[in-house]
């Protein structure tokens, strides 16, 4: 690819230029094609790496001093609290930006044959981002942290076959304690970032191998120099995001709950917002289904999307063009809207079935609801195909429906759950 006539200068500028192609197709630098989401993720990753290293200086990873070390970060005259705020909000924002990036890649038809390895790597990176966020919020050893670890290590116990072994290894024994914190600290500051660096380099290289961003093949190909067109845009997005993030972190402190108390769970005990969809599933379904079967099924479907022939959306155009975006938005809205009545309905069923449990839980709270949802989705798909909606568009509508339901579950977990995880109105 580097067929430039003049060699790049051996300097920082030269290195930045080396990471980019010399020329890019003019139509791919349009902001509304990518919304700069991949670049934003990369920027946030660098910020997280930098603020993470700084926090190693002020954080103490031991059960009896972790919480105190965080309180001291906020002492007058200390900037450590500001650094923690940046790290916390960047981590939260990264979850949102990565999910939007994944949606963008799918909806602009970039998950095609040539890019499907990169699609898989992107999914691995998303999982690592979620895992990094999770292992990160355990480190303060406050009430949120302690009960999240307890729940998570118990969740691992429901995984078929290896469950007991897995929860034992994660906990470092029979109960949550000092070894558990050491394990999660090692995962958060060592294992996850190094895996991410390796995968990110692979991720970027595969974009270059695929010839840059996805583009509409019908448009005339006009190549323009990456410097300054692409690089100035990247700088604008990266620096703009950084300044907004720093401003937000200066104004809003990252939350810190009371110190961990193994004797009493907070009421209600809620996970971080990005896991509340999963927590909501746990309220309704048999644990093995909520923890293992349904997440794995969703993950498998997501990973397989570019491998099923005839489901790829046209490249470089949002949602397949025409009114596609309106159909996608409507499907998302319907999914979101359907999730909440479903939750309320099942809440009534749970309450009315009050008393000694008679039904076999893994059938009544596992197979039956899963089969019902699958049948409903299949029916929607058949109906769409009958209405002469194309195969890629029908699949897109299903994907957006499922994504909308996931958003609905998360929203219900955030706003509609009160003490004892009972349904309440947000006030």
């Amino acid at each position, binding site marked *: 690819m580097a067929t430039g006539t003049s060699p790049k200068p051996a300097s920082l500028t030269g290195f930045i230029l080396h990471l980019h192609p010399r020329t890019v197709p003019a139509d791919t630098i349009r902001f509304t094609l990518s919304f700069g989401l991949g670049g934003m993720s990369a920027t946030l990753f660098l910020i997280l790496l930098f603020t993470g290293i700084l926090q190693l200086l002020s954080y103490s990873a031991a059960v009896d001093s972790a919480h105190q070390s965080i309180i001291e970060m906020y002492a007058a005259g200390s900037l450590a609290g500001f650094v923690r705020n940046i790290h916390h909000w960047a981590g939260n924002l990264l979850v949102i930006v990565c999910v939007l990036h994944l949606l963008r890649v799918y909806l602009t038809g970039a998950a095609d044959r040539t890019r499907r390895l990169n699609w898989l790597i992107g999914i691995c990176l998303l999982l690592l981002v979620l895992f990094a966020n999770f292992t990160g919020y355990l480190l303060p050893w406050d009430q949120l942290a302690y009960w999240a670890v307890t*729940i998570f290590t118990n969740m691992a116990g429901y995984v078929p076959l290896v469950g007991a072994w897995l929860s034992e290894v994660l906990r470092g024994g029979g109960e949550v304690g000092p070894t558990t914190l050491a394990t999660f600290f090692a995962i958060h500051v060592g294992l996850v970032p190094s895996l991410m660096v390796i995968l990110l380099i692979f991720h970027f290289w595969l974009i270059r191998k695929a010839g840059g961003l996805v583009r509409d093949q019908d448009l005339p190909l006009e190549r323009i120099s990456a410097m300054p067109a692409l690089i100035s845009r990247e700088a604008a997005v990266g620096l703009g995001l950084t300044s907004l993030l720093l401003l937000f972190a200066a104004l809003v402190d990252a939350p810190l709950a009371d110190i961990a108390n193994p004797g009493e*769970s907070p009421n209600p005990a809620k996970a971080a917002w990005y896991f509340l969809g999963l927590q909501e599933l746990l309220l309704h379904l048999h644990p093995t289904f909520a923890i293992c079967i349904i997440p794995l099924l969703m993950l498998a479907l997501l990973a397989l999307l570019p491998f099923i022939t005839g489901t790829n959306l046209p490249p470089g155009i949002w949602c397949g063009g025409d009114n596609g975006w309106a159909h996608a938005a409507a499907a998302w809205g319907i999914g979101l809207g359907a999730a909440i009545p479903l939750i309320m309905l099942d809440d009534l069923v749970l309450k009315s079935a009050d008393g000694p449990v008679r039904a076999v839980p893994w059938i009544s709270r596992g197979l039956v609801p899963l089969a019902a949802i699958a049948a409903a989705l299949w029916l929607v798909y058949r109906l769409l195909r009958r209405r002469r909606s194309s195969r890629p568009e029908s699949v897109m509508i299903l994907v957006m429906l499922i994504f909308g339901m996931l958003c609905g579950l998360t929203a219900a977990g955030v706003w509609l759950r009160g003490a004892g995880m009972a349904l309440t109105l947000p006030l």
Partner: protein
Amino acid sequence: MTSETNSDHLPEKPRRRTLLGWLWALLGLLACIELGWLTGSILKSRKPIAARRQGNRLIDAGRVESFSPGDVKAIPEAMAYLSRLEDGSFIALSKTCTHLGCTVPWDQVRQRFVCPCHGSTFDRTGSVLTAPAIRPLDYYPVRIENGLLRIDIATPTRRETFDASQTTRV
């Protein structure tokens, strides 16, 4: 991927190259096994957490007369509840939810244990009233010595259903 590019440029690979390739793969596999074994042995060598409840395993929970049938009292030292059932027998219940390990508070108004994490509820015998929990709360043996109640917290006992053998009669 590499095999793809190789076959583009080298349509006929010498056989010893293939053999060497296999040797490299074998060496790589051995390295992975060794690394896995190393990780496993480090994980195994970690000190198990000293049992929190070492020492006193019999916890005093008060006198029989201080419980009337239907009472549920928290015994903080034991991380347990002592519940007197309607027929006058006692059962000691672990505070830990069998779903995912949160502690369950006793709701006096609704007369049940309500899990603050995932909403499971349990009655005074520890049996599940509302899903998602699928097992009753674990129980501990209760001993009655001269009218004094003692909970043996050495090991919580798992169970699939409640029956009278898990209770202690006066």
